[in-house]
């Protein structure tokens, strides 16, 4: 297999893990916002 042959430096790897975790949390929160947002919207509409 052709490659650069250079393992990723540990600092890069840690930064990448942080970025992955951050993206997962961000998109999880967005999904939760859509879920609760639509229920809240329906509640507000029902209360009118």
């Amino acid at each position, binding site marked *: 297999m*052709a*490659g650069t042959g*250079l393992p990723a430096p540990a600092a890069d790897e840690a930064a990448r893990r942080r970025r*992955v975790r951050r993206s997962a949390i961000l*998109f999880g929160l967005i999904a939760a916002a859509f*879920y609760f947002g*639509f*229920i809240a919207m329906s509640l507000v*509409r*029902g209360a009118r």
Partner: protein
Amino acid sequence: MSNAATAHDNHSDHPRGIWRWITTTNHKDIGTLYLCFSLLMFFIGGSFAMVIRAELFKPGMQFVDPVTFNEFTTLHALIMIFGAIMPAFVGLANWMIPMMIGAPDMALPRMNNWSFWILPFAFTLLLGTMFMPGGGPAGGWTMYPPLMLQTGTAFPFVIFAVHMMGISSVMGAINVIATILNLRAPKMSLLKMPLFVWTWLITAYLLIAVMPVLAGAVTMLLTDKYFGTSFFSAAGGGDPVMFQHIFWFFGHPEVYIMILPAFGIISEIIPTFSRKPLFGYEAMVYAVASIAFLSFIVWAHHMFTVGMPLAAQLFFMLSTMLIAVPTGVKVFNWVATMWKGSLSFEPPMLFALAFVFLFTIGGFSGLMLAMVPADYQYQDTYFVVAHFHYVLVTGALFSIMAAVYYWLPKWTGHMYDMTLGKWHFWLSTIFVNVLFFPQHFLGLAGMPRRIPDYAVQFTDWNRVSSIGAFGFGLAQFLFLYLIVRCIRGGERAGNRAWEGAHGLEWELSSPPPFHSWTEAPSDALVARGASH
């Protein structure tokens, strides 16, 4: 974390047997699990379709009572959409995205395992509802209240199953986004990514935005039934039409969730078998993004007949028609890629070509349905059934078959029997048209959908359609046989199984190593792979 990561990285000592499949965090294993699961669901959902078509072979009641018929139509749709088509695309994403972007695995491997293993429980629960008092869900896959609220004991189980499917999809989507945004090879910029990766990135955004909306809608159904709320109950001051708005805010992007990865697959296959780079790569990316955006502002075209202001009807009609523009760009670019190419017609290309022709037919009938006055006539007839089956069977399903035929040599390390593959293609393509084309005529003549019996004037085309269904169903056993034979052995496939193939996945061995790219691919490899 670091210990777990080390154990994960050490791929020579992964467990064997069934334990390997239960505990796996490897993207290829999970991709295989998704694909096998979707094939199983395809045959289960297909067997429901066979019962439906057998019942409709002639007027009158033959095999099942009307309630069971409605259960079969409902479960056929739920299983095919959430159990067959979507998991198949997630399986393809799992297998191919890390290999295509130069990553060793998906970004969140343990969540990947969870995403898959939720599904068998969800679908066992869903199928199990058929044996509960009062039977399974029979109100259609759209689950409209108040009809859906009449479901018996099965109701909370169906809602729980839908929630589990949603959680699985959202976790899968988060994983795809995190992988694509963080694990690409250093020199692979976004506009160097393969089209399949691009379409999946956009699909994942759609999933994150709309699956929670479906979950919210069915949660509200649950509270209406058991906790005394009246979100959708007119008697309590609620609005049943609001459910339709919320459902279709999810439902229309859902259609694109099932077709955008198909666009990506076709955009990989046509250049390979035309031996030319893809025509208009950037235009293709922007077209996919435009289609995804438009999918959020067209939902009410599914419900013109419930009544809405004229301005809303005009808006939803015109915005729906606007989707034809980016879709036309895509079809034009696929044709332009083939123009003056050195074409060959192996099974993946045959399925890709059939996709372009037949999906376009589904697109045209979609345009007819987008016109408000015409939709008043077509609403809830077999014309709608014909339309969405052209989109989802000859569109989504054919693209999945094309993808399997394209990447199977890479996955297994074996070439498959080309003649058998061509037989499967021709039988599927002929019978699928015998199955669904007459349904346009039935719909235009006024035959309603979701009925187990019909007036005698619809008999002839129903018979033709049922014969097509049986032929199409039987042809799929050839597909199964071909896959099993290819897994068990055959002529060795080279790393680049197809002469015209480009992309990082073809630089790996066939079958690929347990972890795809343990070292980032070199800049030269990335540049060679991205020669679109």
